[in-house]
């Protein structure tokens, strides 16, 4: 069942992105930045966590979850260390996405030759 919800919720978030592309004529950069901010806002109001419980990867795979986990890590540390935790905890949860992108980007650049 969670597979179906992952499909539907993930698909819907992509449709929102597509509408921002086509109807509001935003560039991919603007669209993704907006979605990240939206994800961060949703977590600020405590709404993203229930969505993850409900849709699983449908909520964690879209880029909105990047904003969510940034806020999440920051809040987690902030509870322990106060205001300084906001900065020290920022990348705590989301480190895998960034480090994977950097590592595989480097490996990709070593392995593959640019085309065209």
């Amino acid at each position, binding site marked *: 069942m969670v597979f179906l919800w992952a499909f539907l*919720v993930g698909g819907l978030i992509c449709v929102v992105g597509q509408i921002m592309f086509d109807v509001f004529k935003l560039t991919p950069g603007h669209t993704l930045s907006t979605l990240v901010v939206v994800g961060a806002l949703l977590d600020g109001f405590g709404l993203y966590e229930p969505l993850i419980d409900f849709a699983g990867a449908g909520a964690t795979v879209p880029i909105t979850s990047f904003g969510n986990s*940034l806020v999440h890590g920051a809040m987690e540390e902030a509870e322990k260390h106060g205001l300084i935790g906001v900065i020290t905890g920022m990348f705590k949860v989301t480190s895998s996405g960034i480090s994977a992108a950097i590592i595989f980007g480097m490996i990709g650049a070593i392995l593959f030759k640019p085309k065209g």
Partner: protein
Amino acid sequence: MSKKQNKLTPEQQKYQQFAKKREVKRPVIKNCIKAFLVGGTICTIGQAISTFYMYYFNFTEQTVGNPTVATLIFITMLLTGFGVYDHIAQFAGAGTAVPVTGFGNAVISASIEHRTEGFVLGVGGNMFKLAGSVILFGVFSAFIIALVKTILIQWGGL
């Protein structure tokens, strides 16, 4: 927009209207359906990977997002390197851009593309050329939100 248009000469305005009329109409509904199907499929694959990690590596539902994202970015690297990702992205639009694979693709394609300029200035300098804005706005908005929330909790007694 109107402010910008006021500065244009009449000829330029005429041209703007002319160009607007001949702009190719985007098939919004069709694109949305494609984005929905492909994006949904990517998330379903992500769910399958999550289930695999939860079952074999003792991750919980809350922590499983991390290895899933890393695995998806690894798959993206292979697809980008072999030139398959571009074709899928052409077809799916936001369906491949919005999931984390789009973020991975932006980083990986930029680093492959600039490899000819050398590893330090090319790959290192351009890796986050496209994905940088996502990180910047994500981090900055998360900072503001977490700051406000922490202040509210600590001194507002929320």
